[in-house]
C-alpha cells in the first residue's frame, strides 16, 4: 500500500532519440485505482515498465511513499504484476504457486500456509489448492497470478497489463468484480493498462489517456466522457466517437453553418480552427425540426440501441438512440441536444 509519485518522468530509448514517454508528473494515491488507456504504441507499456522496475527511465524519478525507487529493480519494489498471459509456475500446485514469493523470502512454513489459505479463500481458489497449476482455466490462472501478488503483506501496488484479454467474455465480469473487491478490502493501489475504453472506465477511479508518449488527459471517467480535453480523447472514448463539426465565428458565437448548433465564444479567442463537439448519446430525435436536420445515411442496429448516421453539408454525425425510432435510410430526421452537451474546441483543444 503505497502512494506512487512520478516526478518529471520521461524516457527515450536511446540518447538523442525521440521521447517514447514525454515528461510528466503524476501522483497515484495509496489504495486508488488507475487506468492507463491508449492505442498500441502510445507509451502506456513504457510507463508500466518504468513503474514496475523493468525499465529505468532516462529522466526523472519514481517515488514510493516518498522513497526514491527509480534505480531499484522490480524485486525490491514490492510490486505485484499481472500480465496479459497468466504467469504461473507450471510444475507446482496452486498452493505452491501462491506461496512461492513468501517461500523465496524465507518465511516460515506455517505462516505461508495460513496466508495462502486466506488469500485463496478470498479469491475463490480454496478448492483448487492441491491441483497442478497447469490444469486451470485461463481466468483461474489469472486469479493465481493475482493471488501471488497479494500474499505479500507489504505489496506496494498491483500493476495489471491488459489482464482480461485472454478471458472469455462471460468470465470478465467475475474477474472485474474480484479486482474491485480486493481493492476495496486490501486498499492496495491498482494500475491497469489497457486499450479497451470500457475496461478502463469501469475499473478506474481515474483514467489516464495517453497518445504518442504523452498524457493527453487524466481524470474521472465521467469527466473524460463529458469534457474531453482534446478531440483525440473525444474520439477515443465512447462508442461511437464524439461528433465534431467545423464552426465559424458569427457575432460572438461559434456556429456550425446550416444548423442551430452554437455556443458563445469566450472573449478574445481567435476565430480559427473552431469545432463544436457533442456526444452521440446526448442527442434526441425531434421529428421534423430541431437543432440539426439531415438525411439518414445509415442505420446500425445494436439490440437495445440504434446508431444513426445523419449526413449534412457541414459533415456527417452519428447519434445513438433507443431502438425503434422508425427511421430508414433516405429519411430526413432532426434532433436536439441536451443543454450542456455542446463543447467548443479550438485546434483540437477544449475551450468551453
Amino acid at each position, binding site marked *: 500500500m503505497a502512494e506512487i509519485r512520478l516526478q518529471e518522468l520521461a524516457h527515450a530509448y536511446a540518447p538523442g532519440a525521440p521521447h517514447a514517454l514525454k515528461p510528466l508528473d503524476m501522483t497515484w494515491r495509496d489504495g486508488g485505482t488507475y487506468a492507463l488507456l491508449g492505442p498500441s504504441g502510445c507509451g502506456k507499456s513504457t510507463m508500466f515498465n518504468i513503474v514496475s522496475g523493468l525499465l529505468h527511465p532516462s529522466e526523472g524519478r519514481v517515488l514510493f511513499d516518498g522513497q526514491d525507487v527509480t534505480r531499484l529493480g522490480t524485486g525490491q519494489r514490492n510490486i505485484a504484476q499481472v500480465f496479459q498471459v497468466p504467469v504461473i509456475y507450471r510444475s507446482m500446485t496452486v498452493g505452491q504457486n501462491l506461496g512461492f514469493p513468501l517461500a523465496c523470502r524465507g518465511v516460515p512454513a506455517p505462516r505461508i500456509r495460513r496466508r495462502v489459505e486466506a488469500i485463496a479463500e478470498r479469491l475463490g481458489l480454496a478448492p483448487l489448492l492441491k491441483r497442478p497449476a497447469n490444469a486451470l482455466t485461463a481466468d483461474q490462472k489469472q486469479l493465481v497470478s493475482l493471488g501471488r501478488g497479494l500474499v505479500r503483506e507489504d505489496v506496494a501496488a498491483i500493476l495489471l497489463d491488459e489482464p482480461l484479454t485472454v478471458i472469455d467474455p462471460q468470465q470478465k*465480469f467475475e474477474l472485474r468484480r474480484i479486482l*474491485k473487491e480486493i481493492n476495496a478490502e486490501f486498499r492496495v493501489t491498482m494500475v491497469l493498462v489497457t486499450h479497451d*475504453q470500457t475496461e478502463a472506465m469501469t475499473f478506474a477511479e481515474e483514467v489516464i489517456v495517453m497518445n504518442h508518449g504523452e498524457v493527453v488527459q487524466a481524470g474521472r471517467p465521467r469527466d473524460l466522457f463529458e469534457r474531453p480535453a482534446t478531440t483525440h480523447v473525444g474520439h477515443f472514448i465512447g462508442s461511437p466517437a464524439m461528433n465534431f463539426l467545423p464552426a465559424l465565428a458569427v457575432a460572438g458565437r461559434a456556429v456550425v453553418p446550416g444548423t442551430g448548433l452554437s455556443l458563445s465564444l469566450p472573449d478574445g479567442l481567435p476565430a480559427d480552427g473552431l469545432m463544436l463537439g457533442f456526444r452521440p448519446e446526448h442527442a434526441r430525435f425531434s421529428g421534423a425540426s430541431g437543432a440539426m436536420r439531415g438525411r439518414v445515411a445509415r442505420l446500425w442496429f445494436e*439490440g437495445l440501441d440504434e446508431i444513426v448516421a445523419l449526413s449534412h453539408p457541414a459533415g456527417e454525425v452519428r447519434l445513438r438512440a433507443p431502438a425503434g425510432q422508425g427511421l430508414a435510410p433516405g429519411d430526413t430526421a432532426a434532433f436536439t441536444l441536451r443543454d450542456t452537451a455542446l463543447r467548443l474546441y479550438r485546434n483540437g483543444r477544449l475551450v468551453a
Partner: protein
Amino acid sequence: MLVLRDLSLTEGGVPHLAGVSVEAEPGRMTTLLGRTGAGKTTLLRAVAGLVQPQSGQISLAGADWSRLPPWRRPVAMVTQQFINYPHLSVLDNVAFPLIRRGEPREAAREAAAAMLGRVGLAQMTGRRPAALSGGQQQRVAIARALVKRAPVLLLDEPFVNLDYKLREGLREELAELLQSQSGTVALYATTDPREALQMGDCTVLIAEGRVLQAGPPCAVFGAPATLAAARVVNDPPINLLAAEITQSGLVLDHLGPQSAGATGRALPPGRYTLGLRAEDIRSGGPLPARVALTEVSGSETVTHLVAGALPLVMLERAVTDHRLGSELGLMLDLGKALVFGADGALIPKGASHG
C-alpha cells in the same frame, strides 16, 4: 446462395457441429453469433474445406461442394491470427491468388495495388508483412481475400486481436469494401452480440454446435426463440427469472408474488421463465438488492446486483455510481419481459394459450 444442410462433425467424441443448417444469400452479410467453442470456427472451416463433416451437404448455387478439396473451392478466408505470406512483399501477397489463378503477372499486380490503395496501404506495397503493425497486417489479409472476388467470403472474428478503436474503424471499412462486391456471400463469425447485430443483414445464433435461430437482427433480438437464444444474443446479459403462474397470479421464484397483471398478458397456470432485459430494471422501486459491481461506460451504467440470492443486471442510461455493497430498491418492468414456457420456447405476445 450458399446452403449448408445438416452438417455434423464430431471429433474425439466431442460434437463440434450437430446438424447445422444455414442459408446465406449473396450480397448480404450473415453473422454467426455464439460463445467461444460454440462451433463457429468449425463451421467456417467446413465451408472452406479444411475439415470434413461426417454428414451433411454444402452447396453454392446448387453445385455440391462436398467432394471439392479446399484448393478448388472458390472461397476466401480471413482468420483471427493475421496470416500473410512472410516471404512475399505486401504487393505480392495480395497478388498471389490472382497469379495462382493464371492471371498475367502485371495485371495481377495492378489489381493488387488498386485493392491495397482501397484499404489504405498504398504506401506499404514494398514491405514485408512482418514490418507492419497488427492492424495493417490484417488489412493486407483482407485485401488479399477481397481481390480475388471469390463468391464466398469467410471471416472468423477478424478484428478480435486488434485495438478497440481500430476494430470499429475496420468494421466500417469492411462493410464499405463489400458493398462493391454484390455477388459475394459473406459469413462473419463473432462472440460479440452488438457486433453481430450491427454488422449482419442476417444473424445466426449458434450454441454447442447447433443453430438456435436465424433471421434479421431485430427479429432475432426482439423475439429470441428459446432461452438459449436469449442468452446468446443479449449483451448485457438478460435476466432470466423462474416463475409460476397460479390461480392467484404471478409468483416469481426468488422474489415472491407480483401484482396482478404484471406481465400484461393472459397466461394459463404453469411454470414459466421471464426474460427481463437489463434496461427494463430501474432503480427507485420496492425490490431490495445489493450492488455487486458497477460498470460505467461513458453514458451508460451497468450494475450487477444480488436480490436475495438472485443475481440481476441493470442498465441505466445515465452515469450513476452505486457504491459496492450498497442497497438499492429496484423496479422490474415485467410488462416488457419475454415469456418462455416450461420447455424454454418463447411464447409470442398475442398468443392466447401457452
